[in-house]
């Protein structure tokens, strides 16, 4: 317990920034943009500081803050971070500046745009650090609002429909999740994640809930499954998991690129975070019971999304579906970890690997996807709004630096060893294979297809014949290069020296995996 409320300050800082930006008004555009960027960079520095101070070997949560809030409902304001949360905080702190930079050319209502981005950052920070369902849910829900408006007000022609779909899907999921949690509260009398996890571990949580509800029409197991399903739905929509994913491609495509970066880089991790922080500890038994259907869904997510990405012609849609695919691997690994293995220590070691793989994949995908969409944004700016796969060709001759750097990002997404994308996927597959062999084997198809379409992108956009209208395309400016270099550098760094990340998260991964036992 530290005396200075780091986490609350970190969470509140972007909100302060949002209000500041709004007050600055719309006269001086540059001032607004830079102010917003500065705020996000301060958040980055604070996060790095926390990273530095974080202990990679201590148990439980660090930097905790605890205040009573609504005693009648057993709600406390409790925040803290473990390896996973810190990783997500870092990811968010990196992705938000990237998103802002990619939105530099937005001309309409700039103060509103940047303040919405900052509000979104607050909500993300809040979600990743809250340890009590009450305020966790507040941040979870509030994040929808800036996201909705960012897509709706600055998006493309189909943004109305896309934003609405995004909202409705997420809200349905949220309502289901809320209801399930209230059912849990009924017996457990607490909203605190840690306490609920302990009860679930003892095996007392679900039986008590089921007994309390007294539904005589369903068997106790089925009641437990219904409650699990409610919570599951909320997160499954967010990740997204097939078949709840249909909102994602349109939303990503219609949103302005800067927003897409935020959506794919940070918001999609909210769903996975929820799986790890909430579903696994609380509903482990139920997940074990429905493991096979879950695995089928994960496999479907991986394979079908890769296949669909291959068929797309819009660059943004390609990588939207690719995002679904990459996150599908995380789900595969999570479900693999859930599987009951008895006391087999070798398999337990595989679980650690898979869990680490999930964390790494979350971070790496966030980073890589954000960068990719950033590149697409830059391309769009130069091409005057075009971003179709067949619109370009032979660009490597005209914008070589761009080609090189985007190529690196593409290979990272593909999973080339030496870049960050590889290590996460490797650990996932290594860990999952012994645990759920058939599912892992099927998922390899996804890897193959991904390789095919990414190479396809590379070939169609940068190689091949050059068209007349692109001969004057400007290459990366100095500013762009300066900002891209650290990001690309980070890709290499993590790819070559994953201990950077693992040092912080490994302990947490192990703890989480150990917390799951046979039910």
């Amino acid at each position, binding site marked *: 317990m530290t005396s200075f409320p780091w986490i609350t300050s970190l969470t509140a800082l972007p909100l302060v920034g949002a209000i500041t930006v709004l007050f600055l008004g719309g006269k001086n555009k540059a001032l607004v943009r830079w102010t917003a960027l500065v705020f996000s960079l301060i958040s980055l520095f604070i996060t790095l500081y926390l990273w530095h101070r974080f202990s990679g070997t201590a148990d439980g949560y660090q930097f905790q803050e605890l205040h009573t809030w609504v005693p009648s409902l057993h709600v406390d304001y409790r925040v803290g971070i473990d390896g996973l949360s810190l990783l997500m905080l870092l990811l968010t702190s990196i992705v938000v500046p990237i998103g802002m930079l990619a939105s530099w050319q937005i001309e*309409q209502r700039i103060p509103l745009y940047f303040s919405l981005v900052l509000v979104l950052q607050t909500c993300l920070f809040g979600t990743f650090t809250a340890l009590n369902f009450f305020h966790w849910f507040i941040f979870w829900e*509030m994040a929808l609002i800036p996201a909705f408006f960012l897509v709706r007000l600055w*998006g493309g022609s189909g943004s109305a429909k896309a934003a609405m779909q995004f909202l409705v899907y997420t809200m349905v999921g949220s309502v289901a999740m809320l209801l399930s949690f209230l059912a849990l509260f009924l017996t457990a009398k607490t909203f605190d994640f840690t306490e609920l996890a302990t009860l679930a571990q003892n095996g007392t949580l679900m039986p008590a809930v089921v007994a*309390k509800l007294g539904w005589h029409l369903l068997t106790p197991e089925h009641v437990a499954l219904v409650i699990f399903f409610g919570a599951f739905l909320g997160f499954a929509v967010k990740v997204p998991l097939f078949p709840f994913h249909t909102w994602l491609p349109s939303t990503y495509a219609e949103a302005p690129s800067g927003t897409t970066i935020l959506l794919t880089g940070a918001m999609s991790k909210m769903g996975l975070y929820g799986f790890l922080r909430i579903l696994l500890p609380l509903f482990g038994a139920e997940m074990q019971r429905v493991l096979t259907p879950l695995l089928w869904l994960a496999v479907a997510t991986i394979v079908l999304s890769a296949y669909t990405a291959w068929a797309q012609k819009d660059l943004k849609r390609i990588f939207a579906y690719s995002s679904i695919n990459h996150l599908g691997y995380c789900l595969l690994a999570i479900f693999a970890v859930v599987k009951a293995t008895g006391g087999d220590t070798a398999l337990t070691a595989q679980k650690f690997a898979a869990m680490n793989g999930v964390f790494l994949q979350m971070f790496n995908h966030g980073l890589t996807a954000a960068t990719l969409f950033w590149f697409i944004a830059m391309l769009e700016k130069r091409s005057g709004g075009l971003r179709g796969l067949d619109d370009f060709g032979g660009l490597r001759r005209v914008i070589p630096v761009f080609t090189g750097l985007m190529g690196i990002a593409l290979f990272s997404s593909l999973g080339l060893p030496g870049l960050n994308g590889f290590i996460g996927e490797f650990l996932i597959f290594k860990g999952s294979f012994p645990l759920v062999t058939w599912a892992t084997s099927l998922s390899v198809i996804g890897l193959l297809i991904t390789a095919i379409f990414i190479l396809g992108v590379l070939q169609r956009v940068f190689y091949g014949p050059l068209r007349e209208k692109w001969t004057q395309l400007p290459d990366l400016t100095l500013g762009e290069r300066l900002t891209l270099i650290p990001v690309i550098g980070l890709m290499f760094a993590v790819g070559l020296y994953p201990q950077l990340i693992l040092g912080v998260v490994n302990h947490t991964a192990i703890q989480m995996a150990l917390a799951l036992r046979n039910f």
Partner: protein
Amino acid sequence: MLAWTIYISFLGALALFLLPSRRAAWARILALATTLVTFALALSAFVQHRSGEMFTVVSYPWISSMGIRFSLKADGISLTLLLLTGVIGVCGVLFSWNIDYRIKEFFGFYLVLIGAVYGVFLSFDLFLLFVFYEIVVIPKYFLIAIWGSTRREYAAMKLVLYSFIGSAMVLIGLIAAYVVSGSRSMSLGDLAGFHYSPHFQMWAFPLVFVGFGILAGLWPFHTWAPTGHVAAPTAASMLLAGVVMKLGAYGCLRVAMTLFPLGLGPWGFHVIGLGSWRDVFAVLAVIGILYGALVALVQKDFKFVIGYSSISHMGFILLGLMTLNQIGLSGAIVQMVSHGILAGLLFGVVGRMVYARTHTRDLPALGPMHLNKLLPFAAFTFVIAGMASMGLPGFSGFAAELMILIGVWHSYPTLILFVGIGLIAGVAYIWRAMQQAFFSGSAPAAVTTSHDHSLPPITLPEKLGAGILICSSVVVGTFPQLFLNVIHPALNSPLFQGLRKGGW
């Protein structure tokens, strides 16, 4: 001191009616001053009486030959609702700053209404409560019939007749209760302590509950509400939906459920799965939630959306009352406060900010006006109000609905699914209305405002009113403990003993 909220309101009304017509502009200031003073009184009482226990405000003998006393008391529940009345009273005046037709009569009737509402919340003698409850009826008629809009005379008459029928039913119940208990006293405490026979309670309870329920928008007796609220001028809608409907819910809790708790018990037989009045009203409440939300979803008139949303929200309150556990009941009371604030805010935006300027409430017509550009403050306020209304965490609606949902899980788990659908529908209709009214048309990023007429800017009173209400909603949402601290002791008081002993 709290009794002065009533007296000052009535005195203010009298002063307004006597105001010479030349000084009509002073009417607004007088009205604002009166409402501010009453709000301050309510607030200071709330702060002062932290314990939430019932305390006597005044108690004079009145009609001693019948055992009727002029007796005012307050406990945590009353204090909370008094505070709500104070806030809405002030904001209603602010939102009505632009009225310029028969100003002093408007504010005169307004203050009579507020005074009578204070009276109902403070009354401890049921005769006195009924007197104030009836006094509420007449100003409503005139406020709607004179200053209203769509079909105002019809709407006003319908609203008043429904209310009156409701109060007629209550009167029958009250007279019966009074007589059966020996015609000695009309004090709530005495009557609540009297042991009415279960048979008596079994018919008296639904009678009084439905009587109050009509005013609370209980389905299917709710049809007066959308018409009435739409026809009413903004401030009247705010008061009607925000506070007066809560009178009905308050009456359900304070009178029907307190006097006749055995009426909630099982009948001994089942009809289509319902085994007691409690089941019946719970199901009706859920139907109200769904019906209000689903009908709001298809409305073309902006104000009708809000009107039907009131029905939906009141359904939550009534459902919370029927859960009969502490958390559900507390949730119902917090929802009374929350919906009061939010209804005030929503009607304020739709009626005052939008309609008074655009002179249309037709959603398809509002869309092309690009109101998010012309009236950004209105758009912002509606977004906040809408989010709060649909239960976004951080605002008052979430806190209230959370507690009600827990209560429902406890008592009626089978209904949870329907309530969930209601929640989702709640999101849908708000977003649809918001979408169509403010953010419609082509992607506004590319739109240039080619309007040669811009709309009058949002005035300071409107901003103040909206600001007060938004802050109130946030306070209730983030610090519900403030209110739960006084509500819980009130619910645990001896007055509700019969209800707890039933223990259902």
